[in-house]
């Protein structure tokens, strides 16, 4: 016993030490993570964000340096505040406020004192900076817009918020991230990859050199330049035409699916979202609940398509062989249907209508008949409706297009089960849902879907997914956009339809919109719409809708226009479409009077009506 006491104690101690080491180093310790070691400071080097060019290689978005005044409160020495405030164009109260904020964050660590100094202020300040110990200037790179158009397309960048950071650990507080438009959909391409330097810190938070001589450091990878499909001249022209109106224009090149212009009105100058006034401007834009300038209306505004949809109803009826091109119908100015002799009004003027003249004069009765025949083709209307729905959906309606734009809406194309759910007891039939025949009822589309549908008609049966990206650093990508998507309609049925659409311009509802020298095919549309003001559903002046493509042979442009509350299709949307087509194909506009009329027209009164608090009339101007 006397001999083994020390012996035993030594062994016992050794064992308990190893047990403790095991507990500390193996049981309790997670794997060593360089990124979570507070003895290591990570310094990021931000790469150049990629530039954005339009389809004709004109530069739209570049970068500019932005200068933030930084402060390390502990190093600040008594200073001439008056001079300092003068240089920064702030007052003393603000100076104290910012200084206290920085000190509260940390007296030892640098924090932003004043962001986004203008170039002139920067020049003056940097000359005098040595007088202000503890302050220094940090350069950052922000966007420099070379244009004032296309804000909705180009989007903007802003500091990553908590949600972004949680979603992707690449982003740290203060990093910039794309928030809208191309900036968000091509964020990873544009941003590049930031470089990181690991720096060993000491206990006083001072840098004492590179960690492992920089073995883990990485160099920044510059962001790639992007060439987008937008024609900036056409885009600018579209925005000009749409001024003082709410709505959208989507123009697509049918042979490629490239989006030539994507106008959302009203828009804003993208430069508003850069610089020191950014958050103030953003709030103003965000709070404008009437015009919603931050919403891309060409992509997300869902509405009833109205008469342009009749073209698809006709194509479906032809494909299902329930009408022929020479099928006639006598229109009496109304279409009577159902047991109770319900009626649908028609404004075509009446008389015998065949397919061609039904399209040109937009005869409701004819398409009600065509739709009814399609749905009554089989005994089971649900089955017929499914077939009809599949045909319509093959034009890219009722689903996301799968494009490279950051926002979108599915719209709605009902099928058999949709109505089975609506009418579980009642045996519904074609007449129950006859409104769909003229693009109303349960049909909802977005302007880009309409434009795409128009492109499919122009191509006689196929379309390319509309897209905004043309090339990344001159290297073409995304093969899916190069594969044509076939519609389920036999190409031969397009001929009479296109002829009908041509006659819309030639002699029909858009005959006063003719553009000399260009054979345009189009279709007018008018859609009823409602809004809720203070919980009360109110009908508003009809939307003006128009689709068109040109030229008739080898179409170069397919366009869909929505002018909200524009009363009827040919009135504003049609004019805009004609002008856009002429601008794109000829490069200049000859219809000067029409152009002037459109540019000068403001629908502002129309938009303010429901908010006036007084009873108002619709469709009165």
């Amino acid at each position, binding site marked *: 016993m*006397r*001999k083994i*006491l*020390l*012996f035993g*104690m*030594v*062994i016992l*101690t*050794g064992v*308990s*030490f*190893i047990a*403790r*080491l*095991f507990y*500390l*180093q*193996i049981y*309790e*310790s997670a*794997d*060593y993570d360089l990124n979570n*070691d507070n*003895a*290591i400071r990570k310094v990021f080097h931000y790469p150049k964000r990629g530039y954005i060019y339009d389809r004709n290689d004109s530069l739209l978005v570049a970068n500019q340096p932005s200068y933030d005044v930084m402060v390390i409160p502990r190093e600040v020495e008594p200073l001439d505040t008056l001079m300092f405030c003068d240089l920064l164009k702030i007052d003393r109260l603000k100076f104290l406020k910012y200084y206290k904020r920085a000190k509260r964050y940390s007296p030892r660590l640098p924090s932003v004192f004043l962001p986004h100094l203008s170039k002139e202020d920067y020049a003056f300040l940097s000359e005098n900076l040595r007088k202000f110990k503890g302050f220094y200037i940090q350069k950052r790179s922000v966007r420099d817009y070379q244009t004032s158009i296309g804000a909705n397309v180009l989007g903007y960048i802003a500091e990553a918020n908590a949600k972004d950071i949680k979603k992707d650990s690449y982003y740290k507080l203060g990093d910039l991230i794309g928030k809208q438009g191309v900036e968000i959909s091509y964020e990873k391409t544009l941003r590049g990859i930031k470089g990181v330097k690991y720096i*060993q*810190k*000491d*206990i006083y938070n001072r840098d*004492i*050199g590179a*960690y*492992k001589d920089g073995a883990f450091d990485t160099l920044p990878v510059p962001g790639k330049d992007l060439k987008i499909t937008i024609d900036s001249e056409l885009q600018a022209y579209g925005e000009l035409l749409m001024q003082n109106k709410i709505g959208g224009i989507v123009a697509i090149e049918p042979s490629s699916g490239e989006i030539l212009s994507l106008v959302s009105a009203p828009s804003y100058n993208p430069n508003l979202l850069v610089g020191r006034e950014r958050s103030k401007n953003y709030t103003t834009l965000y709070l404008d609940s009437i015009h919603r300038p931050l919403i891309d209306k060409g992509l997300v505004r869902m509405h009833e398509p109205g008469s342009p949809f009749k073209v698809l109803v006709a194509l479906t009826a032809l494909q299902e062989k329930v009408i022929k091109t020479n099928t006639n119908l006598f229109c009496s100015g109304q279409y009577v249907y159902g047991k109770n002799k319900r009626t649908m009004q028609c404004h075509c003027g009446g008389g015998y209508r065949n397919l061609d003249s039904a399209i040109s004069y937009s005869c409701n009765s004819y398409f009600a008949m065509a739709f009814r025949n399609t749905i009554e083709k089989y005994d089971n209307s649900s089955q017929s409706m499914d077939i009809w729905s599949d045909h319509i959906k093959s034009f890219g309606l009722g689903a996301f297009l799968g494009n490279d734009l950051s926002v979108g809406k599915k719209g709605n194309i009902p099928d058999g089960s949709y109505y089975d759910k609506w009418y579980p007891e009642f045996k519904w039939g074609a007449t129950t849902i006859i409104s769909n025949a003229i693009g109303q009822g349960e049909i909802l589309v977005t302007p880009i879907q309409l434009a795409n549908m128009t492109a499919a008609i122009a191509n006689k049966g196929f379309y390319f997914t509309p897209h905004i990206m043309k090339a990344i650093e001159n290297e073409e990508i995304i093969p899916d956009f190069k594969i044509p998507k076939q519609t389920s309609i036999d190409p031969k049925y397009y001929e009479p339809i296109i002829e009908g659409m041509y006659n819309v311009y030639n002699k029909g509802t858009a005959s006063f919109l003719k553009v000399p020298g260009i054979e345009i095919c189009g279709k007018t549309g008018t859609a009823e719409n409602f809004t809720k003001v203070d919980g009360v559903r109110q009908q508003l002046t009809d939307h003006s809708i128009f689709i068109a493509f040109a030229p008739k042979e080898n179409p170069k442009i397919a366009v869909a226009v929505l002018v909200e509350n524009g009363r009827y299709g040919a009135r504003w949307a049609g004019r805009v479409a004609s002008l856009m087509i002429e601008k794109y194909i000829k490069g200049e506009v000859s219809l000067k009077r029409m152009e002037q009329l459109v540019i000068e027209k403001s629908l502002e009164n129309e938009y303010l009506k429901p908010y006036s608090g007084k009873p108002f009339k619709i469709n009165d101007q």
Partner: protein
Amino acid sequence: MNVIRSNSFQLDWIAVIIFTTLVIFGYFNILSASTSGEFTSYLDITKPYGKQLMFMIGSLILITVILTVDAKFYERFASILYLGSIFSLIGLFVFGKQINGATSWYDFGGLTLQPSEFAKFATALALAKYISDLQTNIKERRDQIRAGILVGLPAILILLQNDAGSTIVFGSLFFVFYREGIPQYYLLFGVFLTILGISTLKFSAIATNSVIAVLLLFYQFFIKRKKKKFRGTIAILLCSICLSFGVEWAYTKVLQKHQQDRIGLWLRLEKDPEKLQAMKRNISYNLNESEKAIRSGGTFGKGFMDGTRTKGKFVPEQHTDYIFSTVGEEWGFFGSSMVVILFVLLILRIVYLAEQHKSQFSRVYGYGVASILFAHFLINIGMVMGLIPTIGIPLPFFSYGGSGLWAFTILVFIFLKLDSNRLNVW
């Protein structure tokens, strides 16, 4: 028995190899812990690693001298060495230099020496000489007291210089007394006092003594054969009550604030977890950082010279008392376990060799060496890993410092010299 000259250098190579390994590994850890930025030369004597290299060369000279001197010298001159070290300790009150609150250093123009380090081997030698004296019988109380004074004198001198840690090391010589045959009740008393002390501080004197009273009553009525004799039981109870309040009194009145805090933190006397965290950060800042460094080492460590917390100087005093945290961070579980195992092997080897000796002097001295090494090993590594309260003493062979390295070298090599000579007639 024949005198075989060549036996003079029959060293125990196992001990020598372990010693050398520890010193060299220690040097590399000091190098890592004290390199900051501009590394110039290994011989840069403005830096701890440069000095340590000098100290190691000094050790080598000391080893040569120790091994050359005749083994008998150490027994003969034990008393003189002891007296010398006592005087050097007393001299500190006049000429001493204060570093970190303790007046334990002589300053010879840049070279500082710490006599308390050298007092350890001198005391061990003197104790060995006293116990092995034919006239001494350690089983007798008179001789126990004398031997106790022998150990207590330097211990108290060191305590007066405000170096409580080193004083505790002298307590480890209890193992020597116990091995040489002091009665069992000393050990029992020691264990009892330890348990009583911890329990008193943790739960209060009243609670502790109530439990002891209940246990004693149980013993009295159910186990003890002579149930009617109460005197012994009552004496134990009274004794424990006195001790218990004594401990409380000593804790609050004798101990300094920082010592109270360290013990308080170790026993987790503070219940509020937030306050406890705050205490961890403030009072045992070093310990907190050293535990973090060790933890961050993980299984295999971050590699030599790559410890981020070591490089950032997050652990104060890392190259001296907290050197083991560098081992933990840079060499991981395997490296630090290796160090623990080497220490255990070295101490056990010394105990084993001591037991082999026929000469009582060598045996007692060997035991003394093992006890002192054990005390340092237990206290230092235990402290760095947070197993025992913070007590600032160096880790033998590892911690930076000339006095420490030289004193431990002398301590170990005198024994190895004695050991190499064990077959010789005295």
